[in-house]
């Protein structure tokens, strides 16, 4: 199946209503949800991320597109689960303890879902115990966000906790975070922004882009 141009354009342009309408129509005619996802929706979202990195679009446009993607995924997810469709990998994500900032972290979570990952979203004010449980439930990477210089030191606490646990990748991001800080606390990856987040997760987990 070739990509569905109207669906692709609706996601890239952030037209949530159109995404929902097209998906309902296509599913009614018997189209495979897995195909719609992998042939059209994931490439559309990847294009959004790439255009963001090239500064062709900016946070507002990416956020609007991510929300359209999210609306589409809500329709597809139950069907995908039923058909036994496997996600590329499972990751968990949360804003660290002490910090309630949600929106940036949610955008990263949506971009990762849009790239075909299974995302365990732990919300905000997340402590080591919650990250630990998500890893126990199968998360291969721990993604942490902090928006405040006052809360970012907790990232080190989490990174220290998982050091030595084989296979768990620590990836961090957020406005005050830098590559230097990621190196300092021994994180495996640093995502400069929501576009870069998908690439760094793919790199850390050894997945082809």
């Amino acid at each position, binding site marked *: 199946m070739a990509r569905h141009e109207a669906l692709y354009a609706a996601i890239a342009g952030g037209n949530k209503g159109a995404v929902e309408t097209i998906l309902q129509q296509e599913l009614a005619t018997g189209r495979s949800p897995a195909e719609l996802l992998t042939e059209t929706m994931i490439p559309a979202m990847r294009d959004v991320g790439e255009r963001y990195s090239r*500064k062709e679009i900016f946070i507002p446009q990416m956020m*609007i597109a991510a929300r359209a993607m999210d609306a589409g995924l809500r329709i597809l997810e139950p069907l995908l689960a039923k058909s036994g469709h496997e996600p590329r990998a499972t990751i968990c994500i949360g804003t660290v303890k*002490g910090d309630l900032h949600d929106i940036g972290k949610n955008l990263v979570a949506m971009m990762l879902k849009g790239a075909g990952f299974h995302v365990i979203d732990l919300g905000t004010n997340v402590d080591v115990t919650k990250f630990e449980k998500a890893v126990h439930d199968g998360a291969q990477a721990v993604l942490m966000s902090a928006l*405040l210089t*006052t*809360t970012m030191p907790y990232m080190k606490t989490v990174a220290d906790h998982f050091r030595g646990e084989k296979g768990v990748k620590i990836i961090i991001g957020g406005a005050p975070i830098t590559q230097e800080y990621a190196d300092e606390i021994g994180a495996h990856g640093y995502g400069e922004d929501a576009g870069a987040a998908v690439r760094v997760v793919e790199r850390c987990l050894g997945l082809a882009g």
Partner: protein
Amino acid sequence: MIVTVRLGGERREVVADPGETLDRIAARADWPLNTVCGGRGRCGRCAVVLQSGHFRGRNAELTAEPSHPRRALACQMTPLEGTPCEFEIPASSRRIESGRMVADCAISLRVWKSRLQRAPLRRPADPLGSPTSDVELARDAILQYADDVEFGIEAVSEIAMGLGRPDASDVWWIERDGRAFAGGARAATAGQPLGLAVDIGTTTVVTALVELASGRQLANASDYNAQLSRGADVASRITAAETPGGVAELQRLVRGTINELIQRLCVSAGRSADDILHVVITGNTVMQHLALGLPPHGIGRIPFRPVVRRYPLLRAERLGLAVGPLAWVEAVPSLSGHIGGDLTADATVAGLLQRRGRWLLVDIGTNGEILFWDGHHLRCTATAAGPAFEGAGLSCGMRADEGAVERLRWRGDHFEYETIGGARPAGLCGSAVVDALAELAQAGLMDSTGRLDTAALDRRGAAVVIRQAGHPVHAVVIAPSEASAHGVPVILSEADIAEALKAKAAIHAGIMTLLHLAGCGPADLDGLILAGGFGRHLHLRNAMRIGLLPELPLECIEVIGNGALGGALQGLGDPAAPAEWDRLLRVAEPIELNLCDKFETEFVDSLLVPHADPTRFARLLASDSAPPTQRPPSTSRHIV
């Protein structure tokens, strides 16, 4: 090497060390720049125009020639040996007081009644008769005017010394809730007692000096907060405060700024700082804590709890303020860790709790603070708008200063603009950014997500492509290079538009979330009070057309200007003010937006122009075919 620095018509030559950045070179030329972010290339306020020579930036080398001047951030540029380097400082990038650093508040107090009072100390005719101590002598004098009086040790010793001096004829005190707090003794021949109002912002400190008896404002002065060297935002100040000795250091820095302003105020008013006997401080909660030397750590993380909301009365001496050593210093109570005394002051001066019906009060700065009063509850919140509306962080942004474009209209193929002071355009201040978005959207040259129609703009000669971090970014020309102040075009890029959209979405989503929590919508509002310097010069209709403010009849919007300073002044001249502060404290219900389900959806919806649901702005959009009407800018009335 020698670098030539130009400002206005003047040139200065500076011997620069290798690797020295242009902001340091400018400082050597005695023209320090606005390195508000501490020279980290973040705030965009130190822009200069490179006229000739080779320069090294963060990522690349640049060559400028008089025929091809280049705009660059001084803090990110170093001159390279080998060519004569010359650059020009736009007036807007100098670190000087701005005429518009908003000390103006549009609300005037109806009645001025100084909270500092004095009464003659009568020495008893018969020295052996009652009263039995000096302090009781003073107390008897004060109790003629107040129900109760409190003497601290400073007042006691001052009165003891004062009574020993033949010229100490008066006792003075300030009144709070019917109670007198004795200040000291004073000669009747001493200068008129003065009051000082201080609004400590994260970026700017604004002050006013007032004659207490008459309420006459003698002088205003403002400057950047010296704490800027320790970070641009509140969170980074908290981090700085957490280092050893950090609180004392930050307190020292802001005290330096305030003391310098006091000196300027007194020189311009021709008064002595020793006559300042009552100081009212307002500002955000972190700034207030640091000014009083209190650790703000708790505000930096959940549960965002300050040390104190109702600050104790202090002597100036203890804080090291360069005013009368016994002056009483009062800080306006903070409503929460995120909502400071500046909002308490706004609400007091606007008489928010006295209003019937449902009222919003919105103060737009780097943070947007929003209060919603429905007659029973005062819901309040803060939302991170970012500095775009203060003209920072945009390619051609500047603060509201001479040469800033402040009004814009699209005339079919170009922008028509007005600048502050009628000067040649040097950059855009916040109100112009709002106008640009509204006009571009209405002309169909920008879509609802903030993308420019570059083909259509190009046909009109108004499109330009700039480079940002090596990538081309589309932009619209506001003023072409030949018309501009520095020979480089004033532009608004798609990246700038995105910043403005995030800012307007944060404010609008904050407003809508508070209304939603109260179970109502914009149509249920009786009015909206807009505070802050940005709001003072905003084209209100355009603010609604882009979805910054909810759609309301224009007559329902009141613009009050710097209500924080106005409220601090009120603290000097309205005996009812402290009771009102306490009432606000009692009814305030702080809301954490990040914990509200609706907020994020509303934020993303609000990123669109005007909104994902344009029917919310239906009346406005329908009437856009008719020529817009705007109230003439109201003349500013100072509090007297």
